[in-house]
């Protein structure tokens, strides 16, 4: 039956179509039904290929299900449901249509069995998500959206060039293990790397995500980077370079996060840090590490979404998001505070919260495979995560000095969405076997032994002690209204300045040229008369006269041929 084999992106695209023309409770119902029905349907799908077609002699597989795509599919359906519920009060048509299209594109990319289908959804991810940034309707979000779109589309174009090389090499477009053995492989790796926010390619994320709407960022945080993680896990497992790239990703953003004032930008840096753990897991390439990477992606989608939701709630209610403007909100937003603390505990990998059961897998795999220095870096960044995401976010928003702002908890749909995410964080943390049963490999991993629990708790408590000590000694950097330069300075300031300088130089050359023409004119009036603006040799001829001469020449040629 055709309905059984409906690809998972279809319900979302249909919902987007209806969302454009309906309003009120009807639209809310349709938007919520898409992830619910899609998710239930996905649970009945056994692994296999459901749609195969042929295009220009290449075999295309737009819909393929296996254990790796399935777990990402589940996570995306959960994220789509929670984020849609969170955004239910939004009246803006642009956002309500763009969001399901964006979620659907992510589904399409994850269930793509060939590279061309992946490319199509890869670009759709960019085109649909940018509207969630522009929907903020500020000049900042306008420019951030344009920069985001340029970089995302560039990633897609590189993917397209890479897949053409790859297809020429191998004669197949199948989306499986690719490896960095060829030029095509490298280009595809680079394309995935841009979307995955590799170091130096990461600024689109920290630039654009904090400028999106309060609800839009919740969608953005769930899909784009996780699709890239999925793509890396499928095409480049065990690529050793990923271990070092991932370790760098896990470490460098935490320094920026500590001095950043915009709390949603702090979370954006923290997002790169968490993706770093996943990239390390993919790079190590053992069954345990891939399981760790995938389960951490699953958990991150939920707890990072939860943290972005709590900060979105703060922005929605107070209109502010800078740490320097906030503080003391726990007094009147007790539920949001509680949800934020659950999210913070999960991302920090406290025992009994979801981050703990997945992050420890990657770290165990790193030490088992002999990556000692990488393990130390991951340990450092695990402590650092607690420092900036675990303590800084809740502390500066809800506690710290009292800003005097008194706002209530956000609308009920936002609270409900945060509650579901928080409940999932705790449930997965307490019953990790639920998550483990979905993983692509069978490994009997138990995170809850005395060694792990004690080590992780010690690490976190003494990170907190460091925070307290630094605060008491006034050594903790205060929240300041500021912009911190990152790699995006190169294309936002350096290149424009160089180009402006270059244009100014050209203008000077042009003036010199004019002066030279006048000089020549003065030197030789005859030449000037011939070549000057009104000179005989500078005159232009109409096309008609040229046609006339062509006809005459052809006629002469014809006559000559008769002679």
């Amino acid at each position, binding site marked *: 039956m055709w309905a059984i084999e409906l690809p998972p992106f279809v319900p979302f695209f249909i919902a987007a179509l209806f969302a454009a023309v309906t309003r009120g409770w009807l639209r809310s119902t349709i938007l919520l039904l898409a992830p619910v029905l899609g998710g239930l349907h996905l649970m009945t799908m056994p692994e296999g290929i459901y749609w195969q077609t042929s295009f220009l002699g290449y075999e295309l597989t737009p819909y393929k299900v296996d254990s790796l795509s399935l777990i990402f599919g589940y996570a995306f359906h959960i994220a789509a449901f929670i984020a849609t519920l969170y955004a239910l009060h939004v009246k803006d048509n642009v956002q309500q249509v763009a969001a399901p299209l964006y979620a659907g594109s992510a589904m399409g990319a994850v269930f793509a069995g060939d590279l061309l289908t992946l490319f199509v959804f890869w670009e759709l991810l960019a085109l649909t998500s940018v509207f969630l940034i522009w929907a903020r309707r500020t000049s900042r979000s306008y420019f951030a959206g344009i920069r985001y779109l340029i970089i995302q589309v560039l990633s897609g174009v590189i993917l397209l060039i890479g897949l053409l090389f790859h297809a020429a090499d191998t004669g197949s477009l199948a989306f499986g293990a690719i490896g960095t053995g060829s030029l095509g492989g490298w280009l595809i790796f680079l394309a995935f790397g841009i979307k995955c926010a590799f170091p130096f390619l990461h600024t689109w994320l920290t630039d654009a995500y904090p400028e999106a709407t309060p609800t839009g960022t919740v969608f953005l945080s769930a899909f784009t980077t996780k699709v890239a993680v999925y793509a890396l896990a499928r095409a480049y497992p065990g690529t050793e370079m990923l271990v070092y790239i991932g370790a760098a990703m896990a470490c460098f953003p935490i320094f920026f996060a500590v001095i950043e004032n915009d709390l949603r930008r702090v979370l954006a840096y923290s997002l790169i840090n968490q993706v770093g753990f996943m990239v390390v897991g993919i790079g190590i390439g053992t069954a345990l590490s891939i399981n760790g990477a995938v389960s951490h992606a699953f958990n991150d989608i939920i707890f990072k979404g939860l943290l972005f939701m709590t900060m979105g709630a703060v922005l929605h209610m107070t209109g502010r998001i800078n740490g320097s403007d906030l503080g003391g909100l726990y007094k009147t937003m007790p539920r949001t505070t509680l949800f934020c603390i659950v999210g913070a505990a999960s991302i920090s990998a406290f025992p009994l919260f979801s981050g703990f059961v997945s992050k420890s897998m990657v770290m165990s795999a790193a030490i088992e495979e002999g990556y000692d220095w990488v393990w130390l870096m991951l340990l450092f960044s695990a402590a650092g995560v607690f420092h900036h995401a675990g303590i800084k976010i809740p502390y500066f928003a809800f*506690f710290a000095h009292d800003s*005097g702002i008194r706002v209530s908890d956000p609308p009920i749909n936002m609270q409900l969405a945060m509650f579901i995410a928080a409940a999932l964080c705790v449930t997965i943390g307490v019953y990790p076997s639920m998550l483990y049963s979905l993983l692509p490999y069978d490994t009997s991993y138990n995170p809850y032994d005395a060694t792990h629990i004690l080590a992780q708790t010690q690490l976190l408590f003494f*990170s907190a002690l460091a*925070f307290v000590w630094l605060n008491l000694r006034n050594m903790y950097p205060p929240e300041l209204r500021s912009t911190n330069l990152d790699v995006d300075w190169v294309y936002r300031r350096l290149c424009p300045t160089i180009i402006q300088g270059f244009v100014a130089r050209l203008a000077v050359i042009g003036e010199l040229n004019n002066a030279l023409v006048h000089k020549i004119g003065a030197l030789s009036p005859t030449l000037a008369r011939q070549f000057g603006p009104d000179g005989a040799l500078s005159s232009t001829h109409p096309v008609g006269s040229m046609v006339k001469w062509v006809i005459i020449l052809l006629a002469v040629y014809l006559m000559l041929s008769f002679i």
Partner: protein
Amino acid sequence: MSNPDIKHDQIHDDRVYFFDKPRNVKILMRVFYALCALLVVLDFVINRYTYHPWENLWAFYPIYGFIGCVVLVVIAKWMRTFLMRDEDYYDKPEERRLHEISHARSVEEDHHVGH
């Protein structure tokens, strides 16, 4: 957690909340310090298996966590000396550009209307 630049004067709210009482903060901090101490003591009680020789060092995880975070903050503070700019560092040229675009457009429209 005490902060010297506390500004209570903006609050127009008579209710006294949990952390407004210094006594509560003090109790919370004492509990926290006690837990930290307990965790170090547990290191000797619980017989851990280790993967790596460094883990056998005395109180490896507590010391690594504490020093790691202090180093993190010190380096991050130092980074501010050369990375920090005004809040509107990027905004000014962008807004000027937006103004130019919209200005050019309005001139063009006037032009069309004039014809």
